[in-house]
């Protein structure tokens, strides 16, 4: 078993690390304070191929493997979890379903600009009545002639009004339960498609999270993604892949929290010595370091499973569950190690703590991850 990164993975890691340190780190705090979307950063990431990293070259992507993708997301998240989620949603929740389920024409028309970073994607599954109970889709899609008419509301959607291409799920036939749900490709500007509230969030504040409103939104019939009635399956498979992205984001937050804690512990002196020599600080750091390393192993393993085309549903759920809970524990402890300074916005650890929380919630709550893992073990 070879745990070393390949040359390609090492070079990618170095490049993304350089980019992050020069372009993202210096403005991450300001982006959070102002709740400002990282427009320039996303544009530059698009230019260097990060927005469609794992999409094959023939569809405008870079053709990188999933392990490389997790490395890139982790590096970005170390500086800014918000930028990381924008990249992750574009790659995992927009590019992936188009690649896996799109027709050739849909790939050329929608996947290529997303992969090249020319357009931004979003994933619209969650509704006010359908969170963990994703099957409870109230948004409807009715076919009339050669068009679909979509009515309903999606909320808590990452990239919301900023995105250009949306993967939307709607109920075509309620009598069929989950098999009545279909997936559609909606574009900004489609008639009857508008935006509602933009949320004011605890964390990942630069990321735009908001409502999508469909009022007799009508699109041509060729906008259906995959087959009728296969929407729920498409959503679940997409979320499986997306979990690897979120796990990487959480890992980046955890690593950044650990790095800052070690740095602070070496510099901060109390009782005449750096606090790094104190037993309780060392115990905390040992636990944090071990958890971060374990999270990294789970993330890499899930990514590897996907790359070698092994089933990755349970590994991805485990990675997301463990990495997100690690991010929460490690960032909480990081504030504690920083003492009073950790509570102040001058230091980034309070931002890591606020950003970490959502990783336990979106793309499947920790409870849902546990359900997925348990059912996988029991069946």
């Amino acid at each position, binding site marked *: 078993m070879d745990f070393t990164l*390949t*040359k390609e993975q090492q070079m990618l890691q170095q*490049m993304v690390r350089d980019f992050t340190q020069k372009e993202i780190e210096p403005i991450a705090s300001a982006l959070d304070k102002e709740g400002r979307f990282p427009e320039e950063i996303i544009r530059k990431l698009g230019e260097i191929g990060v927005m469609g*990293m794992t999409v094959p*070259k023939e569809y405008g992507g*870079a053709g990188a493997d999933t392990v490389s993708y997790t490395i890139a997301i982790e590096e970005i998240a170390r500086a800014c979890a918000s930028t990381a989620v924008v990249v992750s949603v574009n790659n995992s929740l927009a590019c992936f379903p188009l690649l896996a389920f799109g027709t050739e024409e849909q790939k050329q028309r929608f996947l290529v600009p997303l992969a090249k970073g020319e357009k931004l994607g979003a994933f619209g599954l969650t509704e006010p009545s359908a969170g963990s109970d994703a099957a409870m889709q109230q948004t409807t899609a009715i076919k009339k002639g050669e068009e679909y008419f979509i009515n309903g509301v999606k909320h808590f959607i990452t990239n919301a009004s900023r995105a250009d291409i949306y993967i939307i799920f709607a109920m075509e036939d309620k009598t069929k339960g989950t098999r009545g749900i279909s997936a559609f490709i909606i574009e900004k500007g489609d008639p009857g498609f508008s935006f509602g509230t933009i949320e004011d969030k605890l964390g990942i504040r630069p990321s735009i999270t908001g409502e999508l409103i469909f009022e007799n939104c009508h699109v041509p019939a060729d906008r259906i993604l995959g087959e009728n009635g296969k929407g729920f399956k498409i959503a679940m498979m997409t979320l499986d892949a997306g979990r690897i992205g979120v796990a990487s984001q959480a890992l980046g937050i955890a690593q950044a929290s650990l790095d800052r804690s070690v740095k602070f512990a070496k510099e901060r002196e109390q009782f005449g010595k750096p606090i790094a020599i104190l037993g309780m600080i060392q115990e905390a750091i040992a636990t944090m370091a071990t958890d971060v390393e374990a999270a990294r192993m789970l993330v890499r393993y899930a990514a590897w499973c996907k790359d070698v085309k092994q089933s990755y549903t349970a590994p991805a759920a485990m990675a997301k569950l463990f990495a997100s809970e690690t991010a929460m524990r490690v960032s909480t402890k990081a504030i504690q190690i920083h003492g009073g300074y950790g509570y102040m916005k001058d230091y980034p650890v309070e931002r890591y703590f606020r950003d970490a929380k959502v990783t336990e919630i979106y793309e499947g709550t920790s409870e849902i991850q546990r359900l997925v893992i348990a059912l996988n073990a029991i069946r």
Partner: protein
Amino acid sequence: MNIVVCIKQVPDTTDVKIDPKTGTLVREGVPSIINPDDTHAIEEGLRLKEKFGGRVVVLSMGPPQAMDALMVCKAMGVDLCYLISDRAFAGADTLATSYTLAKAVQATGPWDVVICGRQAIDGDTAQIGPQVAEALGVPQVTYCTEISVEGRKVIAKRALEDGYELIRTELPALFTVIKDINKPRYPSVMGIISVCRSCDIQTWTAKDIAASPKMIGLNGSPTQVSRTFAPEPKGVGQVLKGEPEAVVKELVKKLRDKNVVRVR
């Protein structure tokens, strides 16, 4: 336009420590990077190509590990890279190095522009660019913050400590650049994957570039390094006390005696 860029792989000296016993750099475990000024040289080369067409060739004289630096260049979008590597090059000072690089430049075929970074962060001599230009027998403009080409004519802007100079010259010519000239692009994901999956960077030996054995490596190096050491800490310093006029006179005298300031 045929553009040749010379780069060096260096230890990332922001990370480097001095071994207290030997007084020399501890290189082990220190990451290697493309010399920062050289990244601006590569970028300038790529921009000239984007404007005028042609190709960008990057050369680096170094040990086999310098291949990593060239792979990054390839991932940035340069057309060709050559590693100039041979045991016979070991121990080269800047004169032997610049002779070797000049021979390598000539080996790439007809060329119009050579671009180098101003200086390397490990040696800090800034001698390579000027010496390569002399070896090639072409005009040189150093410390460039702008290179404007029209046909065969060039106007280059040089940054000096107290201002700027505009220098007019003609191709073929060599330029050394400083960081103000541009913002280097990042290697793209596609570029990295391409260079890793089909790496075609050749290594040239002394024979390949028709280098004379007397002019390369230790043989070709007039400079001999007898000792490397970290300077002694300067100590507490001296406080000059008294009336401002008298103190200033005393201070100026001390500065003159130490050659820090010169009398005009």
